[in-house]
């Protein structure tokens, strides 16, 4: 016969953790920061934090909850996936957000945990977990975009160190980064097997960073030039020639963060509902509908597309959680997300007419100016992180089993 305490025990094994998370967040999240999350902070330059922001970051860094599922011994939260979800829910409930992010969290950290040496993990992971070191990604080169493995940036073996010469491009946040994880060529005779994964301090002599101006204006992207840059061999992750395998693993982390869990998608579609905005700018007919029937039809079609996308995100996530393995649907996420985001931007502009095409200066609403820059910047979504064309190739070949083609 069961004892009384056992009968009264909570049926939800996570209830204890939920209570702990709720209490801790209540004690540490300053309510004044509610909803002040900035989706772009990961690639934006350093800015003056308020003392509350500093305190919030320090508390989360100390607790390891910025990277909740990373091992405790390296400064992570040591939580199970289920506990991390509970933490997420509790944060959402009070409008709290994760102050720790960037490339170190999204891509480099998980990869280093898998492939790094013990020394490397002890050196780099705790600083990422606390958000004190910024990382940038040295992958793409002017001649190596979709065909990344054709990269040319060369690291010459000099015994205990390499000397790196070459150029990288699209280095997000390069001008503010402390360190760079990069792919270099250590063997010119082999394509994939000649690539090595190294870590470079951005203040090493010979590293030069030049920000790239985009069609949307100034940007976090840079061209990065390497001239006789010394990289100690201790900074190599994995073996020489193993860089392509490690680098590809990192790209999987990148893709899963770009195609977005619900939170990324939520941010993507924030802002005034298109229908409301259209009623304001286009007016309504005698039945209260958007006066422009053609535009109305296209807004509805977009809205339906977006809902189908959100439901697919949810289905894929449920299927993954129930251990049915990754759903085939995850392969289409990046393309669908990019298409819907770009269509939304186009509609936002069309609805406002010429007031939706302002560049700067007087006469425009702040939201409209922001939407113009997002429209232009958003053209990159179908290009970076594996262009839509590359994603379609992957779907055709890996999922549909179609042949390699021209």
């Amino acid at each position, binding site marked *: 016969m069961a004892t009384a305490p056992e009968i009264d025990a909570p049926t939800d094994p996570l209830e204890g953790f939920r209570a702990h998370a709720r209490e801790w967040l209540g004690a540490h999240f300053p309510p004044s920061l509610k909803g002040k999350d900035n989706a772009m902070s990961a690639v934006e330059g350093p800015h003056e934090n308020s003392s509350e922001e500093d305190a919030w970051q320090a508390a989360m860094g100390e607790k390891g909850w910025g990277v909740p599922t990373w091992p405790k011994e390296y400064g992570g939260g040591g939580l199970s996936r289920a506990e991390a979800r509970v933490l997420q829910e509790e944060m959402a409930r009070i409008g709290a957000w994760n102050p720790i992010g960037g490339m170190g969290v999204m891509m480099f950290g998980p990869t280093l945990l898998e492939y790094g040496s013990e020394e490397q993990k002890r050196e780099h992971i705790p600083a990422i977990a606390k958000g004190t070191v910024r990382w940038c990604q040295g992958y793409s080169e002017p001649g190596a975009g979709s065909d990344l493995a054709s990269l040319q940036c060369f690291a010459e073996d000099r015994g205990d160190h390499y000397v790196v010469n070459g150029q990288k491009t699209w280095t997000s946040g390069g001008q503010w980064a402390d360190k760079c994880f990069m792919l270099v060529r250590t063997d010119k005779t082999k394509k994939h097997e000649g690539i090595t994964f190294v870590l470079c301090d951005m203040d090493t002599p010979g590293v030069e960073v030049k920000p*790239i101006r985009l069609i949307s204006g100034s940007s976090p992207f840079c061209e990065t030039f390497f001239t006789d840059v010394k990289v100690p061999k201790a900074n190599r992750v994995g073996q020489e020639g193993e860089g392509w395998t490690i680098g590809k693993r990192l790209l999987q982390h990148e893709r899963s963060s770009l195609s977005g869990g619900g939170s990324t998608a939520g941010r993507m579609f924030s802002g005034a509902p298109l229908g409301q905005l259209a009623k304001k700018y286009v007016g309504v007919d005698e039945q209260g509908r958007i006066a422009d029937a053609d535009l109305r039809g296209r807004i509805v079609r977009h809205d339906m597309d977006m809902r189908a996308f959100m439901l697919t995100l949810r289905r894929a996530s449920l299927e993954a959680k129930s251990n049915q393995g990754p759903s085939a649907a995850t392969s289409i996420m990046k393309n669908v997300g990019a298409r819907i985001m770009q269509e939304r931007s186009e509609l936002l502009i069309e609805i406002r007419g010429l007031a939706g*095409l302002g560049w700067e*200066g007087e*006469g425009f609403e702040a939201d409209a100016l922001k939407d113009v820059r997002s429209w*232009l910047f958003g053209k990159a979504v179908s290009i970076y992180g594996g262009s839509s064309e590359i994603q379609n190739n992957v779907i055709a070949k890996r999922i549909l089993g179609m042949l390699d083609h021209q």
Partner: protein
Amino acid sequence: MAVLTEEQTMLRDMAREWADNESPVTAFRKMRDAAPAAFYDAAAWQAQGEMGWAGILVPEARGGAGMGYLSLGLVLEQLGRTLAATPLAATAAATSALILGGSEAQQAEWLPRIAAGDVVAALATDEGPRFAPDKIATIVEGGKLSGTKEFVAEGDSAHLFVVAATDGLYLVSGDEGVTRSPRKLTDSRSHAQIRFDGAPAEKLEGGTDLLTQVTDRAAAALCAEMLGMAEAAFAQTNDYLKTRVQFGQVLASFQALQHRMAKMFTELELMRSVVEGALEAIDSGRANVSQEVSLAKAVSGETLHLVSREMVQLHGGIGMTDEHDAGFTLKRARVLEAMWGNAAWHRERFAQLNGY
């Protein structure tokens, strides 16, 4: 290609050569970076005046060439190819109003100066950010015009405004009662808010019908510019695909990309037909000009939109940079699509004109 007279062929070839050599996209870039108060390339405009382009629509008796809209379109198309920033299209729209509705005295006063390239003229109709010729509140009392016009192309520098009021079009010259506020749009061209506060105004003949006739002509002229832009964007993209190597092959060898280019090429052929069709309909005074213009503007808007978007996508990262020209096309395309009625507006008018 429309069947051209010898004169038109010469005009087109000359415009193409001039745009390529004297006003390439680098000239637009220079103008953008220098950001002059007038937001156009003054030297290029002067050269166009000397070549007689400002007078293409102006009758010979008034010092022009009297060549008509197809000829104007041939020139604007060539200028669109290199994004030449001059007030030619805006001035032509205003010229239409003078030719259709100007009195003997008004024509004698303005047309020779326009033909000589001495006058920048602008058509000021809309009072909001969207094309809405049925929503005009500007009024004229005792020869004084009052109202606010939004996003007037070349409004920063115009010497002469053709202004839509509740009872028709008016001429406003000079700065008495006129306040200009620049509106910086994404295409880096001139679009100003113009406030008229008791500005002396002279009426044009033709009442409110004149507004439809004039805005149809303004839209048709823009379609020609859009055609040139689409044509150039397509050609540049095609060239790029033939040179950029990825996975050991030029991009042009990938069938998925070939088919997209083939589709765009097809759309461009359709676009050329409807644009030339609209210009010819105006020249031959056909009764269905509005329908032809709506067809042209709707198809042009969609096609340029497709080609400019694909230009960025197919160029990949380089197309995202300000250093590349793709962004210029993308930005100007959106502005031209929104001017004088976007594709949705013209589809709706087309539907109404056809009794759908």
